[in-house]
């Protein structure tokens, strides 16, 4: 009995770290994999094809894409942590609703704080902050990872997936702003001599379909480099 009590106590102490974390160290091999995988072979956009909706909406210019990435990262890391903390308390029948409430609350918090202390950024993002709630990646990671893993691992998973999402978002925004408007972060980068020689900005790049096509090209390049990602049937 006494021994049993000790074990329980130890478990309480390491609420934030599962046993494996302890053995591996904070950034052990497995934990590093949680952070790095979403960048490459398990990218939320190009491999899992989640979060496409916001990838279309905010990749017209680089700046909103970057700010959106940071906001998504904050929301994902914290919602993953909170759900992971509550994972043994949440009644399984209403777990999706609970996840939604937590995500929505965090998004509103982010929005309110931006409005008070970073007013220009909040204007820049306008409705897209609210749309983080509907970002499939957030719900997807809560359901697939946070409900079954420890708090620290869930935090890493949130950061990792948000970074993978951010990477694609910024890449797409880079090409769309460059080819569509001849600018990067709002500054003219294509020299006037190009325009004088007959170069024209491609207005089509600014429209949503070109985001899909750009993501498609990234998926094509990724799969031709790593053939294991290609579905067999």
């Amino acid at each position, binding site marked *: 009995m006494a021994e049993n009590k000790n074990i329980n106590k130890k478990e309480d102490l390491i609420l934030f770290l599962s046993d494996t974390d302890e053995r591996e160290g904070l950034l052990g091999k497995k934990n590093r994999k949680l952070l790095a995988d979403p960048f490459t072979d398990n990218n939320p956009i190009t491999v899992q094809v989640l979060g496409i909706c916001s990838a279309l909406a905010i990749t*017209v210019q680089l700046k909103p894409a970057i700010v959106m990435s940071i906001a998504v990262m904050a929301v994902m890391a914290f919602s993953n942590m909170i759900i992971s903390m509550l994972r043994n308390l949440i*009644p399984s029948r209403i777990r999706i609703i609970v996840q939604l409430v937590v995500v929505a*609350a965090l998004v509103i918090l982010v929005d*309110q704080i931006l409005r008070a202390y970073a007013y220009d950024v909040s204007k820049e993002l*306008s*409705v897209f902050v609210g749309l983080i709630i509907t970002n499939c990646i957030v719900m997807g990671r809560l359901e697939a990872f946070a409900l079954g893993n420890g708090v620290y691992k869930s935090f890493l998973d949130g950061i990792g997936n948000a970074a993978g999402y951010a990477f694609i978002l910024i890449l797409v925004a880079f090409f769309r702003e460059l080819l569509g408007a001849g600018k990067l972060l709002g500054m003219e980068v294509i020299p006037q001599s190009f325009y004088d020689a007959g170069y024209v900005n491609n*207005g089509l790049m600014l429209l949503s379909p070109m985001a899909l096509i750009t993501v498609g090209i990234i998926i094509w390049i990724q799969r031709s480099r790593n053939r294991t990602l290609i579905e067999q049937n």
Partner: protein
Amino acid sequence: MDRNSNAYTFLFVVLLIAVVASALALTATALQPEQAENVKNEKMQNILGTVGIEVARDSAQIPFDKYIVERIALDSKGQERNDVDAFTVDLKKELKKDVEEQAFPLYVADIEGAKYYIVPLRGKGLWDAIWGYIALKDDVNTIKGAVFDHKAETPGLGAEITQTWFRKRFDDEKIFDDAGNFIGVSVAKGYQGGDNKDDNAIDAISGATITGDGVTDMISERLINYLPYFKNNTNVKVASN
């Protein structure tokens, strides 16, 4: 307690809602003064922007008090109303009322002896509201400058109405035609007029036709309400139509 029982589920939901609701209410209340301050400063910054005074948002108060010499709320007949402060008029709410009951805010700026009339605008873009301010020179015909903003227009397309290059196209445009009829300024698709400032039109943004039409409508629909006042209070001949 059984995690799958109804009682547990209800209890969990009630607790969750109580915690989330109080956390959000607390944050919203705590941050409200800062947010209101930002909105107020931005309004002053925008008003000053129409008359060519560009200031940082946080330091808009002092130049605003210096240059904006009068703020008047008008009724639909062009009479001054004393029951409302022009600065606090919320056009979003005002536009829902009947025209007879609306208050029309008007700011008068005096910059080194030159007098300007600044009219707040509000209308509809493609996705949501657009708004702005337009300043007229003391002939009540030539535009001194305009500032636009929007809630949810498409970045790179409709959202470009906030950009300086678009705003600058309004400078020195006329709102009346040569015969003295009120026209406003139309944001014209396929505009061929170049630098012509007397044709009551400016070049639109490609890919943002509906937002541009919204700007056109907002200018004419709002300004027309100020014509009675301009007719009575300025020595400029304003044809009524």
